[in-house]
């Protein structure tokens, strides 16, 4: 490799590293930028069809952005406005909930002592409740911070999204030109594959979540379980996390079933609804929609989720899967090249 080619290569990698460092140092910019990029990847196939050969692209992009903003911003503002109120109600009702749970746990302790003669001395209910109370208070304290960051996102995400729609071709051709020749072909193809896989994965997960949420809602409506819409929504959202998501989505319904003193609310029928919805998801929806896109071993998926949660919390848990799928392709490419040339 000649000297100026080497310099070009070093400059390119230095630019890449500098971009990553900038991203880590300024998460308030990077996160909305990343979110806008994900939305852009999801919307790209549709906008491509809408705008092909059409010169009124600016109007179409503006209309799309307005519609998308209405769908995203309104529920966000509305839920944040209501969340404070909901949390105060929950805080007020916490002592009542604590009493019911303590009674149930006491009954359990007595039955264990009567049957096995074992005395349980710990008090997990008080422990959990104190922690919940603390978390609630903390959340209430931080609501202004959340609102300010939501407002920041409301301003930044549409701005970045408009930039992606309008300037992505020019921007990507500028990036393409700066990629040095020796790595151009591979970088371009891998980057395109990553973009396609990432967009398809997030889209497929949202469709899967909607189907599961709808199934749970219908099931809960049929058995007459309380709050079917909220529980369906929670089940759908948590289902975005593979494997552990359905379990997390089940927890609220489990607590509602314990706390409700209504004979109509039966634990067994509720468990059956969740199991059936998740079975349909596992047998039909997931294999048809998602698994073909990522094609990863279940153990790799679980390990990836744990790593993702450590790195970036809930967002990390969701987006780590397409990243791992991309690294699998990258590893295969590099390994095959090395095995040919070494």
């Amino acid at each position, binding site marked *: 490799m*000649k000297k*100026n*080619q080497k310099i070009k290569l070093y400059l390119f990698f230095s630019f890449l590293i500098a971009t990553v460092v900038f991203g880590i140092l300024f998460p308030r910019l990077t996160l909305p930028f990343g979110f806008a990029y994900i939305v852009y990847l999801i919307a790209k*196939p549709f906008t*491509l069809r809408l705008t*092909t*050969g059409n*010169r*009124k692209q600016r109007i179409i992009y503006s209309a799309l952005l307005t519609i998308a903003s209405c769908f995203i911003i309104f529920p966000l503002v509305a839920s944040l406005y209501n969340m404070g109120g909901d949390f105060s109600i929950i805080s007020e009702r916490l002592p009542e909930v604590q009493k019911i749970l303590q009674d149930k746990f006491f009954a359990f302790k007595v039955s264990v002592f009567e049957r096995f003669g074992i005395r349980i001395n710990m008090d997990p209910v008080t422990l959990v409740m104190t922690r919940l109370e603390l978390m609630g208070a903390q959340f209430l304290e931080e609501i202004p911070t959340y609102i300010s960051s939501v407002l920041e996102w409301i301003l930044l995400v549409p701005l970045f999204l408009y930039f992606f729609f309008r300037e992505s071709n020019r921007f990507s051709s500028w990036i*393409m030109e700066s990629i040095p*020749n*020796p790595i*151009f*072909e*591979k970088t*371009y*193809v891998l980057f*395109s*594959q990553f973009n*396609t896989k990432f967009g398809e994965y997030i889209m497929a997960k949202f469709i899967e979540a909607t189907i599961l949420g709808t199934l749970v809602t219908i099931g809960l409506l049929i058995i007459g379980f309380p709050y079917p819409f909220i529980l369906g929504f929670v089940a759908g959202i948590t289902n975005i996390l593979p494997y552990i998501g359905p379990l997390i989505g089940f927890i609220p319904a489990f607590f509602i079933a314990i706390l409700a003193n209504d004979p109509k609310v039966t634990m067994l029928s509720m468990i059956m609804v969740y199991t059936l919805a998740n079975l349909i998801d596992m047998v039909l929806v997931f294999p048809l929609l998602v698994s073909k896109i990522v094609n990863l071993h279940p153990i790799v998926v679980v390990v990836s989720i744990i790593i993702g949660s450590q790195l970036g919390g809930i967002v990390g848990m969701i987006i780590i899967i397409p990243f791992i799928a991309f690294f699998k392709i990258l590893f295969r*490419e590099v390994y*095959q*090249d090395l095995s*040919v*040339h070494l």
Partner: protein
Amino acid sequence: MSYEKEMMEKISRGETPEDRLDINLLKYMWDASPLSFKESYHDFFKKVSIINSFSDNEIRLFTKFLHRREFLPNEVIFKQGDSGHGFYFVFSGAVNIFANYQIQNEDQGDFILRLEKYQYFGEMGLLEEFNRRSATIVAAENTVLLGMFKPDLDQMLEIYPVLGAKFLKETALVMANRMGQLTREIVSLKKRLKEAEMKG
């Protein structure tokens, strides 16, 4: 379909053509006109055998999916055994094709062919799913290549399916011709081998 025909169809469908000036289209048309001294992509592709059957408007659309890459003399474009994803047209300069080229000890291996302006290479990389390059290509002088890669072909098929199909058909014809040529060469080599065996 020509640009004029596309506009006429738009009008017949009741759509009003854009009254705003499209600077990129004007620039392209100016570059493609006989009054312009600069060789445009349009002039170039009119002389490339697999593209010259395309209409002016199809060439204009086709060039949107290309990447211009500049190479210095002796710069390796791709190596034998590399995974292949792209198809290249020689826009200016020339390239040499080698088999068993060693970069580390600068052993050029076996020279096979020199490709010059208006010629192309790497079409298998565009069509095969897991393609491995069968030879090493090195720039013989200052060379400009126009490359099309798998994602570009996918996008072209999505946005302009007729154009994509036309390009694929032309590429398939080139490959069919090469296969025919290879078969004839194998037959002739076998014949010569048989004759040599009989003499020996």
